[in-house]
C-alpha cells in the first residue's frame, strides 16, 4: 500500500511496490485518456529551493495530465526560506494547501526532514548530490519498457561515476534484480566510491567489471547509461586529453555496439553524446524523459491513493 507514503530514497519501496508503479505507468501510457481527470481537485505543491527546469516541469506535466493542479515556487529566493523559515514550518504550511509535495533542495536530507513532519506525501525531487529517486524510477521504467524486463542483462555506466548521484542510485536499485552484470566505465579519478564497489562485490546476484575505455566494451552492452565527464574533475590536463574522447559516444563507437543496445542519459546532455546519433533507434534518452513523466504520474496516483 503506497497511499500516504513518502518517496525519499530510491530504496524506500520494495520490488513489488515498484512493479505496481511501473504496471500503472504502462496502463497510463496505453490509455492516457482514462486517467485525464483522475486527480481532479487535487493539488501538487512543487517546492523547488533551487532551479531545475526539467524535473519541475516533469512533475507539473504529470499532475496536469492527471487533471490535477499545481502550485509552488522555483527558487529559494521566491520562498519564505529567504526569510529564514525552516523546512519543517514550510511543509506544515504547504500541507494546509496541497495534497502532495515534490521538493528539491540544495541541502542533503531536506526532503527527509519535510517527510518526518508532513501529513501529506513528500517526494524527494533531488537533494543536493544525495538522492534523486524519481530519476531512478524513470531509469527503471525506461529499461523495463525497452527490454521487457529488469533482469539478466549487461549494463554499462559510463563517465563520472564518482559524483553522479543518478548512477549511484541506479546501481543500488538494479542490484536488487537477478542476473545483472555491471560494466563501470570511467577514468581512475571518477570511479564509483569504495562503499558502492564493496556493496556490489558482496552481492552474489551481480557481476562487476571496471574498465577505462568505452570502446573496449561497448559491443558487450545491452544498456549504456551515459553521464557527463567534466574537465575540472580531472587531476591533470594530460589525463583529460588522453581520455576525454573515450567518454564521448559517437557514430564510430555505435558501429561496435549491439543492434538492440539502448542508450540512456539522465539529461541535460552537453557533448558526451554526439548529436549525430540522436536519430539512431538505439538512442533512448528522449524517450526516457517521457517515461519520467509517466512514472511520476503513476507515483502521484499511488501516493494519493486515487
Amino acid at each position, binding site marked *: 500500500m503506497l497511499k500516504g507514503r513518502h518517496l525519499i530514497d530510491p530504496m524506500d519501496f520494495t520490488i513489488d511496490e515498484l512493479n505496481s508503479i511501473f504496471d500503472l505507468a504502462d496502463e497510463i501510457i496505453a490509455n492516457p485518456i482514462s486517467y485525464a481527470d483522475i486527480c481532479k481537485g487535487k493539488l501538487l505543491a512543487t517546492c523547488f529551493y533551487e532551479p531545475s527546469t526539467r524535473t519541475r516541469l516533469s512533475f507539473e506535466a504529470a499532475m496536469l495530465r492527471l487533471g490535477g493542479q499545481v502550485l509552488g515556487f522555483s527558487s529559494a529566493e521566491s520562498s519564505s526560506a529567504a526569510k529564514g523559515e*525552516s*523546512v*519543517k514550518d514550510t511543509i506544515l504550511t504547504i500541507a494546509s494547501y496541497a495534497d502532495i509535495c515534490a521538493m528539491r*533542495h*540544495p*541541502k*542533503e*536530507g*531536506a526532503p*527527509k*526532514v519535510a517527510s518526518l513532519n508532513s501529513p501529506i506525501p513528500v517526494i524527494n525531487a533531488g*537533494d*543536493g*548530490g*544525495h538522492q534523486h529517486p524519481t530519476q531512478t524510477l524513470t531509469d527503471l521504467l525506461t529499461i523495463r519498457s525497452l527490454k521487457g524486463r529488469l533482469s539478466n542483462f549487461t549494463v554499462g555506466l559510463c563517465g563520472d561515476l564518482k559524483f553522479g548521484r543518478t548512477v549511484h542510485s541506479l546501481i543500488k536499485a538494479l542490484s536488487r534484480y537477478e542476473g545483472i552484470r555491471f560494466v563501470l566505465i570511467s577514468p581512475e579519478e571518477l570511479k564509483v566510491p569504495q562503499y558502492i564497489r564493496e556493496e556490489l562485490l558482496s552481492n552474489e546476484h551481480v557481476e562487476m567489471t571496471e574498465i577505462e575505455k568505452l570502446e573496449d566494451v561497448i559491443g558487450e552492452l545491452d544498456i549504456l547509461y551515459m553521464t557527463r565527464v567534466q574537465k575540472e574533475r580531472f587531476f591533470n590536463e594530460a589525463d583529460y586529453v588522453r581520455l576525454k574522447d573515450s567518454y564521448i559516444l559517437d557514430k564510430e563507437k555505435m558501429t561496435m555496439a549491439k543492434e538492440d543496445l539502448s542508450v540512456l542519459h539522465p539529461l541535460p546532455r552537453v557533448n558526451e553524446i554526439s548529436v549525430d546519433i540522436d536519430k539512431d533507434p538505439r538512442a533512448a534518452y528522449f524517450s526516457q524523459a517521457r517515461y519520467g513523466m509517466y512514472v511520476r504520474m503513476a507515483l502521484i496516483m499511488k501516493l494519493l491513493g486515487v
Partner: protein
Amino acid sequence: MLKVDSIERGIVIDHIAAGKAMKIYKYLNLDEANFTVAMIKNVCSKKLGKKDIIKIENVLDIDLDVLGFIDHNITINIIENDKIVDKLNLQLPNEVSNVVKCNNPRCITSIEQGIEQKFRLVNRQEKLYRCIYCDQAYDPNKQDL
C-alpha cells in the same frame, strides 16, 4: 590514595576510556539526577592503563543503550547487597539521537537549528552508523563525541 566507597545497590559503569566519563555523565543526563553519583577519573587499570568509573547509587533503571555507541569496551555491573549480580553486555543501539552531530557541510542539519541529530546503525558487524538525513557515515576517528 583517594578512596571512594563501594555501593550497596546500584550501577557501576566501568572501563570507561580515561577522560570520557564527563561525556557519559552528560549523555546519561546525570547532571539532572537527584540520586548519588560518583565520577572517578584516571583510575589505574590493568586493561586500559588508566580508566574512568561512574558509580550510581540506588538506581537501576537507567537507559544505558547509548553507551554501546559511545564505547563498546565499557562494562556495566549491577550491584545488589554489595555484590555484582549481573554484568551487562553493551549492545549497539539501532539509533542514537543528539549524541553526535553530522559533519557533512552539505547536510540540512548543518544549516537548520532544531533538527534532531540522528544516526542509524546500518552495519552491526562494522559498527557503522549513518546520518538518517544525508547518509554520511559517522567516523569515530574524525568526530569527537
